[in-house]
């Protein structure tokens, strides 16, 4: 098996799909000669040219809408929004247009597009370049949502997303781009709606997304040595959400910690906690712990940022609380 980074995984998926289907067009800011703000699209413009990998003006709402126009007229666009923070500029075209156009038109058109964007703190990028805003898209129906963690999952889900006819929001984590993982040769696709048990355990279920999967696994290692056996479930997609796998784990452990880097209030943790508390009402042995970014804007200076964004220690702390 090869070992590649998440950055390479995304890059490979994009390259392979561009080569496969000429209807795929990538648009976004600085994705061309520059290779993307996080160097994820490196080499693609050289290989495929302006007609397939197109730099845009700085107009997030406009480019998401241009993507939508491409999507409903027969193309299969992949739009990049450089930071998920900038989806705030594009909620009009994303949520009021793309998410609703199939429904409003009575199913006449399907906006076959993938919107890739980047979440996460940890790079001292401060309040406007560190947010993880995926819960906004979970709240308003219309997009399928992927939020993978490993190179394997990133590549398999991105390729699946590009081939899916429904619109997809695809969240990548800036601090995961350098993370490495084993991948087979050849091609694989991952179904949306299938969680992955990243580590089996008996005492506490940790549901973790994106970069938090790595932190949860590290915390699990640490806890193992303290005699607490942690199962780590990575939902991989949020819409649809694989409650089967999550609930099966909860039935086994009776104790749950949910770790998602979005803000806590009305976040992914709130939704999953509410569902588990409902579906597994008779199986819970302790209150469900939620770990997320504290409910303040994300500060610049590292000591404060590290405090606000969930750490391995925070997960350890929460698991111990749940295990008590």
């Amino acid at each position, binding site marked *: 098996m090869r070992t590649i980074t998440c950055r390479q995984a995304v890059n490979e998926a994009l390259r392979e799909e561009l080569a496969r289907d000429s209807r795929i*067009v990538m648009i976004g800011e600085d994705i061309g000669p520059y290779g993307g703000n996080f160097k994820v699209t490196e080499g693609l413009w050289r290989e495929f040219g302006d*007609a397939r990998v197109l730099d*845009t*003006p700085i*107009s997030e*709402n*406009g480019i*998401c*809408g*241009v*993507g*939508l*126009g*491409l*999507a*409903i*007229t*027969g*193309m299969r666009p992949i739009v990049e929004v450089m930071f998920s923070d900038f989806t705030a500029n594009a909620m*009009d*075209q994303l949520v*009021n*247009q793309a998410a609703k*156009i*199939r*429904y*409003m*038109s*009575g*199913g*006449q*058109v*399907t906006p076959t597009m993938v919107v890739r964007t980047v979440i996460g703190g940890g790079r001292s990028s401060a309040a406007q370049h560190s947010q993880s805003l995926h819960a906004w898209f*979970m709240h308003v129906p*219309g997009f*399928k949502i992927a939020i993978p963690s490993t190179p394997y999952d990133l590549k398999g889900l991105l390729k699946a997303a590009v081939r899916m006819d*429904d619109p997809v929001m695809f969240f990548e984590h800036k601090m995961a781009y350098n993370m490495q993982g084993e991948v087979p040769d050849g091609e694989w696709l991952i179904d949306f*709606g299938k969680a992955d048990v990243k580590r089996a355990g008996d005492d506490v279920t940790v549901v973790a997304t994106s970069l938090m999967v790595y932190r949860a696994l590290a915390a699990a290692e640490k806890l193992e040595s303290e005699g607490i056996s942690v199962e780590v479930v990575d939902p991989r997609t*949020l*819409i*649809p*959400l*694989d409650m*089967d*796998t*999550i*609930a*099966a784990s*909860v*039935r086994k452990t*009776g104790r749950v910690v949910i770790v998602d880097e979005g803000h806590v209030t009305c976040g992914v943790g709130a939704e999953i906690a*509410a*569902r588990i508390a*409902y*579906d*597994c*009402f*008779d*199986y819970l*042995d302790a209150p469900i712990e939620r770990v997320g970014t504290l409910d303040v804007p994300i500060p610049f200076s590292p000591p404060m940022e590290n405090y606000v964004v969930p750490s391995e220690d925070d997960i350890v702390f929460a698991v111990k609380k749940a295990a008590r």
Partner: protein
Amino acid sequence: MAVPDNKLQIEMLRKMMLIRAFEEKIKYLFTRGAMAGFSHLYDGQEAVAVGGCAALTRDDYITSTHRGHGHCIAKGGDVAKMMAEVLGRRTGYCKGKGGSMHIFDASLGILGANGIVAGGLPMGTGAGLKAKLTGSGQVTMCFFGDGTTNQGTFHESLNMAGLWRLPVVYVCENNGYGISVSQARHQAIRDVAVRAEGYGMVGAIADGNDVLDVYEKASAAVERARRGEGPTLLECKTYRYGGHHVGDPGTLYRSNEEVAAWRAKDPIPRMIAHVLDSGVMTRAEVDTLKAEVDAEIEAAAAYSLESPLPEPEEALDDLFIGFRATGREGRGARGGCAAGAGRAECGGAEGRPRA
């Protein structure tokens, strides 16, 4: 200079009459309480949609607005399906899901009316990019009002179209108001067309109450677009007769004199005078045309009123392909989650009970 042949002149007149009759019927039905929601009517502005769309082919695209009935009819939309949609019937264009503000006909390249001011402009620009990338030769025409030209998406769209020289015609129907706010109170310019220069595109102004003038200028713009010479911002000066929507008397912010002055420039009598004067039609032919139009609208209304309303549960379809959302019975924690796929029962006999 594009001069429409006789057949096209008659067709343009017919379409303007059809729009007028459609809107009058809606007004009538609305006032009788036969319909829900609200409708923004197009009467007075018919020449813009009709003159603009006459310059297009069936394969071309349009994007429309909250005031969209006219555009849809002008592009060839089926008035029965339109009216059924406005009345919320299952037989409507969008199965009753859209209503007046969201009428769509993908088969005619009508990329939707839109409830969001300027909402259609990026989409239309994207359709233009598709045409350019694939060399399909299609042109997109985006309709929008004067008030819309202050929305950020207007700017972003026109900038990209100018930059990439997309085959898009941006048609501003300047009726002097955004809801109650007159142009003088929403922008410092009189001619929206002056903004074209900032996007490196051609700007033009047409008499929006003269369908021939609109047709001529729209045709020139469409030709430029098809030749790969890029987009145009075409401003058509016109007026809406009614209030912002049915229900707004439209009297709080404009004078009766102003309305009367514009009514005197009504595009339909003007076109009738033209076809009579130029001998394209006789008075009797005009009367017959009007009668046919009225009959078509009556038939559309009858069809719509007889059509069934949707069943409540039909609301659960059409979000994703081959997917029905969780309905009312799933209210509660499991409630209506689009994320429904893969939900698990967790209570019940099997499994470990609570310690």
